[in-house]
């Protein structure tokens, strides 16, 4: 038992956590804006507020990468290289997603969100609210709360902080998932599913934290590490605890066998929210998982390497194979996201600084391409909203060659074709794993890449080589926000593929976890 001590006020290095403060502060102001600003101004004010907060957070964190690490809040929060890199990436993803939220030209009824999440789908109230152009601007503060939670998640140095951050990032996402304007039932189902399964995973994480606390006597990762190193013999309490913590995080990463929610949620959620979840949540959970394993459970490296090895192999293969059978663009991208979780785990299994740098680069490359791909999905529409059935994409390359080429670029990046960011990502991850003696896993990764390439290419075939089908989709004319996002993500995808040097160096500078 720990003796009751006098309460000591935690020392807080406000400069180090400023980005988090800015984002969460902006979220709270956003709530107040919703309450007090005139209805016709809320959207503009909230969107600008979110964009500014994300930009400030991005600029602040990216400038700090490479500096010395800061441990603050009595050791509960640590701002080190991986945390800063991940926070910068999350802030960037938030900014890009918020720009997608502002889209009001594609759907004649307004932005991508339902006017009121609480009314019956397709009912009279909804119709009236839609006619009155009522907007649900809570999505902006909700996104900022999630984003702030993620930024704490990647920096949390004890299990309790990690759990609180996990909840702060998850709850807004559950809500956001169920707010799509079109296909409301699908969206509500997505939110419900995500909430139930997510709550279950959180429960696992909490139980795991309790077991690890029982085994090592601390929730602080550094002290857990000391406890693990000092143990004698096999400690089943510790191993079970480790497994349960891993379940909680692997769920967020959508690794097999905790991936079941991913296709449903990615499909049902409003597409800009899907983009945000796919890019930012994955980044946050991967970095948190690395911190937990490397810093807290480094003494169990042999145990979790086996665990992650198997999960990585199964995730890559299953994600790629199941993606082959999909007929819906969003579901296909969801399975692609699962396969990419597997590729990321390959880098985690490498368990050294090369691996960390590779994973950080991969997260950025994948996140950017994912947001870009989902942004393209929002443009391809029919009368019922987004046309996500693959058959409706036939011949898109004939009707809008530029848009189809951009989407093809993102797909080629996912497939890891050279001169795109995805190739450099795969190259760094695989070479780190190879160097760490995981040659077999690299071979499985390459085989999965080949399978995955098949379904990415299938979409390209459909867009460029097939003739447009009856009842196919039309391409909407987006507003400046969406256009900017697609342009920026496409440019970054090519730049990271052609001149990856500076960002790779940044990732290498940021690759050391502070214990």
């Amino acid at each position, binding site marked *: 038992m720990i003796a009751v001590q006098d309460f000591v006020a935690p020392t807080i290095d406000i400069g180090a956590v400023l980005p988090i403060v800015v984002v969460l502060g902006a979220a709270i102001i956003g709530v107040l804006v919703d309450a007090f600003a005139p209805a016709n101004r809320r959207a503009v004010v909230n969107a600008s507020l979110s964009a500014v907060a994300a930009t400030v957070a991005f600029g602040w964190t990216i400038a700090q990468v490479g500096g010395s690490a800061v441990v603050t809040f009595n050791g509960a929060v640590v701002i080190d290289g991986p945390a800063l890199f991940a926070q910068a990436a999350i802030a960037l993803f938030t900014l890009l997603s918020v720009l997608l939220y502002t889209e009001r030209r594609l759907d004649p009824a307004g932005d991508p969100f339902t006017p009121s999440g609480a009314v019956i789908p397709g009912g009279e109230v909804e119709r009236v609210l839609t006619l009155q152009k009522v907007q649900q601007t809570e999505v902006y503060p909700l996104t900022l709360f999630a984003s702030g939670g993620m930024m704490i998640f990647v920096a949390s140095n004890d299990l309790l902080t990690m759990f609180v951050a996990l909840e702060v990032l998850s709850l807004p996402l559950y809500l956001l998932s169920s707010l799509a304007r079109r296909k409301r039932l699908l969206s509500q189902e997505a939110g419900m599913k995500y909430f139930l399964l997510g709550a279950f995973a959180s429960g696992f994480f909490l139980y795991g934290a309790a077991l690890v606390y029982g085994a090592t006597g601390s929730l602080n990762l550094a002290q857990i590490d000391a406890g693990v190193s000092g143990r004698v013999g096999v400690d089943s309490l510790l191993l079970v605890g480790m497994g349960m913590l891993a379940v909680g995080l692997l769920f967020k990463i959508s690794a097999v066998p905790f991936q079941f929610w991913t296709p449903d949620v990615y499909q049902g959620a409003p597409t800009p929210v899907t983009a945000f979840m796919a890019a930012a949540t994955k980044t946050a959970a991967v970095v948190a998982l690395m911190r937990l394993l490397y810093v807290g459970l480094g003494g169990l490296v042999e145990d979790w390497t086996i665990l992650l090895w198997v999960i990585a192999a199964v995730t890559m293969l299953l994600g790629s194979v199941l993606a082959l059978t999909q007929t819906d663009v969003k579901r296909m991208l969801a399975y692609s996201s699962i396969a990419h979780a597997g590729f990321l785990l390959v880098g985690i299994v490498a368990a050294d600084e090369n691996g960390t740098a590779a994973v950080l680069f991969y997260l950025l490359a994948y996140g950017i391409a994912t947001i870009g791909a989902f942004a393209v999905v929002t443009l391809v529409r029919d009368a019922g909203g987004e046309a996500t059935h693959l058959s409706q994409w036939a011949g898109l390359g004939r009707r809008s060659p530029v848009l189809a080429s951009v989407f093809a670029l993102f797909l080629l990046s996912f497939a890891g*074709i050279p001169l795109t960011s995805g190739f450099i990502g795969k190259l760094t991850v695989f070479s780190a794993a190879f160097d760490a003696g995981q040659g077999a896993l690299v071979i499985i990764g*390459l085989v999965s890449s080949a399978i995955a390439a098949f379904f990415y290419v299938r979409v390209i075939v459909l867009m*460029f*080589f097939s003739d447009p089908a009856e009842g196919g989709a039309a391409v909407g004319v987006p507003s400046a926000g969406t256009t900017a996002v697609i342009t920026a993500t496409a440019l970054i995808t090519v730049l990271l593929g052609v001149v990856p040097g500076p960002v790779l*160096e940044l990732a290498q500078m940021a690759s050391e976890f502070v214990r």
Partner: protein
Amino acid sequence: MTFPVLTALVLVPLVGAIVTALVPAARTAKLTAIGFSLVSLALTIVAALQFELGGPLYQLTEQVSWVAPFGVYWSLGLSGISLALIALTAVATPIVLGAMWNEADASGRSVKAFYALVLVLQAMTVGAFLSTDVLLFYILFEAMLIPMYFLIGVYGGDKRQYAAMKFLLYNLFGGLLMLAAVIGLYLQAPAGERSFLLADLVALDIDATTQNWLFLGFMIAFAIKAPLWPLHTWLPDAATEATPSQAAYLSGVVDKVGTFGMVALVLPLFPDATQTFAPVVVTLAVISILYGGLLAIGQTDIKRIIAFSSISHFGVIVLGIFALTSQGTGGSTFYMVSHGLSTTALFLVAGMMIARRGSRQLADFGGLQKPAPILAGFLLVAGLSGLAMPGLATFVSEFLVLVGTFGRYQVAAALATFGIVLAALYILIMYQRTMTGPTTPETENTPDLRGREVLVVAPLFVLLIALGVAPAPLLDPINDSTRQTLEVVGVSDPEPVFAAEGGDE
């Protein structure tokens, strides 16, 4: 600082592709693309004039750090082997661009994209021939699949989607195996000293087992690209469904990257594994020669005949490379060029014939030499170059390969000779069925070749004959480089079998 002529050789077609895509009218785009390809040809001549015989293996080298944390370089160098192949590319590109003048219009799809994609392909192919950084080579080797894939998939025949997909998946699979080997090779150096530079990697001392695995990774990728039995099945589909000029460019120029990779990368990087596996590769090459020849005889589709003949000829090239004698390896490199010229000529002339009749089936032709004697003449000479008629460049190369192989693998060389007999059969059968005999109502009014068509293909024939009579200008730099490469491998030519009667050397 001197003018970076090798970088310019890569960038000019790329800039040309962008300009071609941007000019407004289709006709201007075609002329722009041809103009840029002629600039490339001029630059290639400039580079060739600066190449010194007897100099170092790689000349006119340029090296700029590209991805510093990983030791990746934009590193180019010109060897005699790459000189021969960029010369082939530089000659073939304007010819192919000229020959596809009507193909793009006939497809009903974007003409500008067609021309721009060919130029992108040229840039990547030339880059692969010149690169002296293994990752740079790999990147270009993989990336060139994408323009080729779109060319076949968008502009090809009825089964183009299937053919394009098969082409891509085969090559992508090989590429991924090669990627694993590239990474594995790179990690052989101790941490901190790693780079992808060919010179650094060749200097590594790799143990035999690792070398064998890495050899396989590279070799399977190259054996898919330059199709070697049993990894060849994508080529007949791709070449048949592609337009004739695409097929010419694919099997005449682009696929040479595979055989080039064997000579320029596999041999110096994995000398021990090369010698270990040489008998296996030689066996597969002989099977390719006979199998390709036999299947070519059995085809009824003209483009498939030429595709299978290419498989047979690629077998000869691979046979010569892995004979590991100066005549065999040098002859193979020479064959890469002469086969490029010969196949391009054959595909283009056959394409002009097919376009006149609207059918690829042998049975739909007959007696064409009466209404179209010039076409018949060109097809005959192109065909004769395919069966290695003395006086043509292909004869010199095939002869060198067989002589070089005989010194080490007598049985293989003897069996490979049957390839020439088979070639005579399928070429002459094709000529006989299409050109001789009575005309049919459909063929009796076939128009002969027009001036533009003659102008486009004529340079190929001039070169085939010129190099057949005087091969030295091309053969000397090639032999210079292959000799240095074989020194790295550490093999010397075997003693002549009949030493007492030893001929010229």
